[in-house]
Every structure is written in C-alpha cells, then in structure tokens.
C-alpha cells in the first residue's frame, strides 16, 4: 500500500504534462462561463435588482376583429424585482358607462416586458381609452 502510494506520487509531476489540450479547452471555457454568469448575477445583486415592480402598459396594435376590437399591448416592468399575477386593465368609454376588459399575466421579470391582448366590443381608438396595470403579487 505504502509502496503503491509512492509510485503514484512519483507519477504526479509527470501526469501534469499528459493533460490533453481538449481538457484545457473544456475547463477553460467552463471557467470563462462561470466567471461570466457569476459576474452578471453579482452585478445584478448590487444594482437595483430589488426595487419594487413598476409597470407601464402601452398599446401596440389595435385591429378590428369578429365581434369587436383586439388591442395587443406590451406591459413593461421598469422596476428591478419580478411581479407575479399582474392584472392589466383596459377601459373604453361608452355612452352608458365605460367597457372594461382585463387579463392577468403570470409573471413580468424585472426590467422586462410581456405581451398580451384585450378584446372590446366598442372601438378603443378613442382619446379616452385607458390601459393600465391594476395590481400585482410578490412572487
């Protein structure tokens, strides 16, 4: 046992020269990726990753479809933290009160956007059409 250990140890210095170049490549790339990922997440940790969600909603496209109108919107979370169950609500003014439509988006990550759509029977292409985020839950 002791003798075997000695033989093994003698081989150690030599074994360093036997590392194939592909191993250097694989572990070098791995190290590089690790540094990038760690660096990126570390940077996030230090920069505003926890500021609460702030969501702005903008209509991208309004189209007439069967039975009414379809509004495609983009909800952008400019805060650092993710928001869950974000309720997006749109209102089109009508002669007998506004028409409301709403949808719930599962998640909007921090500094990210999600798209969705709302349907209305009245034409949303009026000046008084409103589109907003009504609320969210902390994930």
């Amino acid at each position, binding site marked *: 046992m002791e003798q075997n250990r000695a033989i093994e140890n003698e081989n150690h210095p030599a*074994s360093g020269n*036997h590392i194939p170049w592909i*191993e250097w490549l694989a572990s070098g790339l*791995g190290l590089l990726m690790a540094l990038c*990922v760690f660096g990126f997440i570390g940077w996030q940790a230090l920069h505003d990753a926890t500021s609460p969600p702030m969501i702005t909603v903008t209509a991208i496209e309004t189209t007439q479809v069967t039975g009414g109108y379809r509004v495609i919107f983009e909800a952008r979370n400019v805060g650092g*933290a993710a928001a*869950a169950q974000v309720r997006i609500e749109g209102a089109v003014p009508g002669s007998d009160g506004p028409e409301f439509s709403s949808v719930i988006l599962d998640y909007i990550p921090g500094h990210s956007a999600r798209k969705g759509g709302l349907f209305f029977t009245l034409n949303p292409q009026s000046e008084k059409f409103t589109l907003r985020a009504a609320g969210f839950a902390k994930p």
Partner: protein
Amino acid sequence: MVHDDSVPETNKDYAIGLGRAFGGAVIFAIPLLMTMEMWWLGFSMEPGRLLLFMSINVAILIGLSYFAGFEKTFSWKEDAMDAFAAFGVGILTSTTMLALLAVITFDMTWSEIVGKVALQSVPASIGAMLGRKQLGGGQDTRAEEERKAEAGYGGELFLMLAGALFMAFNVAPTEEMILIAYQMSPWHTLALGVLSIVLLHVLVYTVGFSGQESRPEGGTFRSTFFHFTLAGYGIALLISFYVLWTFGRTEDVAPTEIANMVVVLGFPASLGAATARLVI
C-alpha cells in the same frame, strides 16, 4: 492502484468523457428543465442567494470530481478543472435545452435569460459530473473505493450532503412542496420524519444494494445509528432548510410551518443522502 496514471490520457478519451458528461447533464436536468417554477425562480429569486447557491455548487462539483468525476483525477488542479468543465457543460446544456423548449427567447432581457440558465445549470452540471460514472463502461471502481476509504467520515458526510442537496433541489421548487406541508397534521409530519430516519438507515446498511456500506469495524447498531444515520438525517434537514431559504420559501412564514416544510423536504433529502453513497 497504480491504475491509469502511467498511461497518458488522450484527447479522444477526454472527448468521450465529455460526451458522457453531456448525456448525464441532459438526463439529470430534464425533470427540472420541465418544471415551470424553475423558470420563474430563475428571474424572481434574489441574485445574492442565487450566487451563493452557485458557489456551493462549484464546491460540490470539485468534491464530486474527487469521488466520481468524468475523468480519473489525481490532483486538486485537475479536480478544479473537471469541476469547471462540468459547469461549462451544465451551462451549455441548459442554454440549449431551454432555448429548444422556448423557455428562453431572443425578446427576453439578458437578466432573465442568465437567471434561468444559471439556476438550471446546477442540476445539469451535477449530472455532467456523474455522467461518466453512470454511463461509463470501464470505471475505476477500485480507485474510487480507495478514495472513499481514505476520505473517511468526512467524505461520507460530504457524499450524503451532495445527495441530499441534489434530491431536495429536484422537488423543492414546486408549489406542491408547500401545499403538502400545509395539509399535513403534526402527526403526519412526525410519522414522515420517523420514516425518513428508518429508510435512511435501512437503505444504507441493511438492504443488500450494490455499493452498500458495511457497518464500520466493530460498530454496534447504536454507534452506526448515531454516527451515520442520525448525522445523515441532520444533514438532510439542514440542506432542506437551506434550499427552502434559497428559494425564498421561508420569508414571513411562521417557524412551525417552516419546520413542517423542512421535514417534508427532508424526506427526499434523506433518500438522496442514503442513495448518494450507493450511486457514487
């Protein structure tokens, strides 16, 4: 025990090992790649905790490389190199798979993509490390046994920790974990705790699995139970708590509920602790 050290490893050998690593990464990561809570956690969990989790992962990879790497390693330098290669394989595999499953797309921000990939790379890189061991033909079992023997008690505890972490991590992200803890009465929880300890002991020392540990020399049932089984269960509970904390499951939750969740997650964790010694 002079085994392969004298024969230089060729590029081809290493490439084959790398291929197995990719296979292991895909197989071990699949359950979590297809769990939606994992995608959400990728961008909603606290970056500091994610960073800590990934650092612990690298440390565990180095340890696993020593016991069962995808290469026959014999020095710290090579163990670290193997760990980073496994990490790289994990990152590449998760990126490819997540993109293929349309979980990450080009219109997402970098922080979202990196968060998702980083979290998924943990199980994938562990899979990459074990890939050679699980899928490889000619393993150097003798050298592994020798290492395990050399590492002694600390090594045993490390393997239990790695197994517990992997299993706990596999189930912890889902909502079901919390739901189960809520619907169990204290008696259910106690029974599950007892069953965890019994299984931990039985799986390792009694049932004749391959790779089963023989009771330490001159060890009585009592000393084995205290030294290994209870220590293993302690590790399983600690790991469960750590994983729950990492995923933000403990925030503003009453201590009794946390205890419930820890015991529930402690069940898979202790199974992981028990089987780690058999798998690796």
